[in-house]
């Protein structure tokens, strides 16, 4: 495909200079005149009733300006799934029950953070403890105590997918496998702790500066919980120090800052500390997975029965979406005739799990890919070969769900086989070393409108000026992944102007067009990119007539925008600068500015996503048989993200994903006792450092996605999926131990190898 040269270029991110000079502003960097400091009192018990709260001593402490408890607030429940009001199960501050250690009970605003902390100690809360449950098995057992009285046996949501005749296809199978898998919780561990600053505005309005991935969602839900019109809330996203799914909901401190700012008339800021983040913060869903698969003897996958219980913790958070996507990713990679998914989202007395990079897919893939390797072994088929036999292809249809409009999966498998030296290394078989494979597919944004927005999923406003510059306004949200640069590349390509000439207004919900659902589900490049293109095309429609008049053109001509110029395609001598063209159009419009809106909402794209990425990864691992330590010696990845708009940004996603995947597989986990998280420092929560990272090579398999801007699809999350199954498979090849439980700790491995009892 021919596209402008800026598409695919490795343009360094445009906010890089601000970030390397320390001038980029994150929320906690902002001080507003008269600002108060907030702090949250949290439940010390996993489950209980609040019998009595007395804040009088805290209120009396000098320097304390406000103290609030649930009873002071409008007590309106919220949750991201507005489409299903019954799923909205959270209150900003607990009213009569607490459901996890860390549930927010009261908030204080004081003239210093020290005083705010001291005030917390003066709040008296009396609880009646209730029996608590910590696993999905306990939670769904007969007679288990109910964490939310309205739930059906602690199950908050059920998702079923079913197509094909399962029994019939299992009956045809030559090999049937039944396995159980368990995956654990990990932290997003974004480096920037959450921070929010609310500034009261005139007329009962509020401006919230906040570290978020979803300003629009925060605006709507904050207004809802405060009981004020949506338009009274203005959300300003500052620089965000990473999110990975952990910053995509309304959070109690956003509510508390805003509520107290409105009460006191003063700005209020909350900034969490790392212990709060790790002890009480959102995390990836642990899951208990049962999977039954049937294969023909030549390796064709015929049927899959996939049953999953997600450990959601105390509230739904983004759990419903994870429950949906887990089922979707049980069947996205391979095309087979019969599938049944039964997913249940279960409450436990633990910090809520939520969206985290891959959103249900890393867990599903660990089970699916591991089971596929088991089948390959049983059938005597090479693990990459069995994938090729079943791989999804362009044009494949998942009944009633999606059509795969571009797919380079087979090419990825071939490529990764080649670059990893798969065949030769498997032949050679070195002791204690192994090669493992894992694959992924992921969505480029979701189709299902769970937020129930009235607006388009993405929007952009483009303005052009007679100095040859442009302005792009969008609610899309750069949280480090680079969309502020990518969207400008797309606009520069479409308008044919230099990227430096584009100013970006992002993340002020009052000044950018409605709406954008935020940065999650790897949606921004495709969805907002399409909105940008639509707006740019409308602008071009305003400019083209200038050339036709100027050069007295026959209507059969076409006009090109390139290199800050506009010219007649068939006769490039007939040209003028972009600036002059805007100037003349402006004159022709008698001064009316040139501005246009563009929108994108996926339509007629099934239920899941307008486009899917694919990829395959091979991990080369060594195991020390005495210590059980796993070392990943080398990673190989081949992936299809459509046309990469910014190659360097895509590489950055892959490299970061490997760090996260490595931690998920080998070292990161929460140590919990009776609902308390015991490892709440970065010393004890072990994420990979620079020294732990394996070298990695990769290849891009370029496809052209017809639904994507310039052929692009997602690259942000899918890459976080294959690492765990690939490493686990490598460990099996090295040791003969098939790990069905994550993480693969030395202890677990030594036990599996029979060296520890």
């Amino acid at each position, binding site marked *: 495909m021919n596209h402008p040269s800026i598409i695919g270029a490795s343009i360094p991110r445009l906010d*890089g200079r601000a970030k390397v000079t320390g*001038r980029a502003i994150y929320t906690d960097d902002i001080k507003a005149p008269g600002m108060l400091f907030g702090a949250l009192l949290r439940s010390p018990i996993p489950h209980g009733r609040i019998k009595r709260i007395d804040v009088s001593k805290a209120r009396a402490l000098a320097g304390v300006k406000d103290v609030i408890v649930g009873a002071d607030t409008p007590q309106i429940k919220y949750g991201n799934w507005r489409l299903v009001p019954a799923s909205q199960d959270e209150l900003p501050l607990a009213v009569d029950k607490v459901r996890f250690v860390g549930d927010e009970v009261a908030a204080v605003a004081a003239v210093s953070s020290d005083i705010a902390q001291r005030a917390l100690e003066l709040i008296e809360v009396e609880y009646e403890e209730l029996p608590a449950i910590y696993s999905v098995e306990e939670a769904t057992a007969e007679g288990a105590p109910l964490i939310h009285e309205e739930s059906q046996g602690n199950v908050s949501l059920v998702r079923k997918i079913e197509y094909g005749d399962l029994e019939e296809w299992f009956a045809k199978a030559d090999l049937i496998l039944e396995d159980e898998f368990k995956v654990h919780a990990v932290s997003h561990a*974004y*480096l*920037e702790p959450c921070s929010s600053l609310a500034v009261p505005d005139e007329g009962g309005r509020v401006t919230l500066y906040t570290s978020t991935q979803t300003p629009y969602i925060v605006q709507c839900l904050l207004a809802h919980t405060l009981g004020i019109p949506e338009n009274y809330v203005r959300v300003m996203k500052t620089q*965000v120090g*990473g999110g990975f799914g952990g910053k995509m909901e309304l959070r109690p401190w956003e509510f508390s800052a805003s509520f107290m700012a409105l009460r006191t008339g003063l700005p209020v800021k909350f900034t969490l500390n*790392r212990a709060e983040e790790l002890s009480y913060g959102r995390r990836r869903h642990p899951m208990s997975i049962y999977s039954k698969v049937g294969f023909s003897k030549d390796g064709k996958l015929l049927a899959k029965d996939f049953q999953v219980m997600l450990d959601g913790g105390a509230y739904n958070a983004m759990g419903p979406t994870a429950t949906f996507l887990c089922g979707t990713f049980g069947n996205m990679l391979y095309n087979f005739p019969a599938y049944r998914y039964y997913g249940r989202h279960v409450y436990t007395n633990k910090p809520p799990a939520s969206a985290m990079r891959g959103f249900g897919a890393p867990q599903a893939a660990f089970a699916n890919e591991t089971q596929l390797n088991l089948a390959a072994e049983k059938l005597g088929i090479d693990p990459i070969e069995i994938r090729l036999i079943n791989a999804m292809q362009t044009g494949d249809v998942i009944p009633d769900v999606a059509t795969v409009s571009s797919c380079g999966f087979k090419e990825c498998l071939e490529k990764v086989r080649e670059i990893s030296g798969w065949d030769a290394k498997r032949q050679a078989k070195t002791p204690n070393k192994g090669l493992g494979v894992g694959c992924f597919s992921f969505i480029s944004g979701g189709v299902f409108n769970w937020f129930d927005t009235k607006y388009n999923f993405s929007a952009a406003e483009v303005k052009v000026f007679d100095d040859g510059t442009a302005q792009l306004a969008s609610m899309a949200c750069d949280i480090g992944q680079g969309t502020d640069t990518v969207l400008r590349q797309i606009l520069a390509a479409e308008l044919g102007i230099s990227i430096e000439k584009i100013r970006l207004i992002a993340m002020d919900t009052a000044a950018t067009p409605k709406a954008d659902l935020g940065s999650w589900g790897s949606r921004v490049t495709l969805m907002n990119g399409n909105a940008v293109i639509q707006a740019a095309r409308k602008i071009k429609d305003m400019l083209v007539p200038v050339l036709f008049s100027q050069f007295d053109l026959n209507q059969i001509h076409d006009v090109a925008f390139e290199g800050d110029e506009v010219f007649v395609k068939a006769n490039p001598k007939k040209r003028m600068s972009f600036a002059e063209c805007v100037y003349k159009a402006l004159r022709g419009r008698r001064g009316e500015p040139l501005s246009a809106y563009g929108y994108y909402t996926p339509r007629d794209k099934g239920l899941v996503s307008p486009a899917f990425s694919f990829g395959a990864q091979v991990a080369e691992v060594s195991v020390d048989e005495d210590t059980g330590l796993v070392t990943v010696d080398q990673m190989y990845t081949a992936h299809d993200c459509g046309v990469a708009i910014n190659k360097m940004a895509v590489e950055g996603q892959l490299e970061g994903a490997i760090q996260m995947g490595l931690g998920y597989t080998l070292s990161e986990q929460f140590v919990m006792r009776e609902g308390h998280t015991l490892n709440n420092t970065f*010393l004890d929560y072990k994420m990979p450092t620079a020294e732990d990272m394996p070298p990695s090579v990769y290849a891009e398999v370029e496809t052209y996605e017809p639904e994507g801007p310039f052929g692009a699809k997602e690259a942000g999350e899918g890459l976080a999926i294959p690492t765990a199954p690939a490493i686990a498979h490598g460990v099996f090849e090295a040791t003969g131990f098939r790990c069905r439980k994550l993480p693969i700790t030395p202890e677990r491995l030594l036990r599996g190898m029979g060296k520890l009892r």
Partner: protein
Amino acid sequence: MAKQLIELIVNGDRYEVAVEPGASLAEVLREELYLTGTKVGCNQGDCGACTVLVDGRSVSSCLTLAVEAHQREVTTIEGLAPSGETLHPLQEAFIEKGAVQCGFCSAGMILAAKALLDRNPAPSPEEIRHGLSGNLCRCTGYVKIVEAIQAASLKLAAGKEAR
């Protein structure tokens, strides 16, 4: 407890500040001097986001008491390219190589790298990785950070030769 008057030389500028004896250097830099380029990711000495140079040595400013820095030279990220015009080769390399994503670790990474290059002007990738082992990054997988530091070390060496 009574505040103590200390003198800090930050990025070449002299400041007199009254600080609590228990106040960390990070807190004083951020809250008193409003040099917010120094980030606090953990406040426990575990992430390196708050790394600054004190008399040329890299320290975690969240674990360093402000009073310990009395009359010493502190370099923060704001001081690495004081003019705002020309960047330090490390800063340039971080931008060009794509070593910055969310940017929250960047100030600490760059200053840790500066201390490393001051000690060892031509580090191997392994030495760089070792030198950065106290600095966490959740976005980049460290790959481009290591590349950027290598590129900067070459550039600095070339600059020295030219002189």
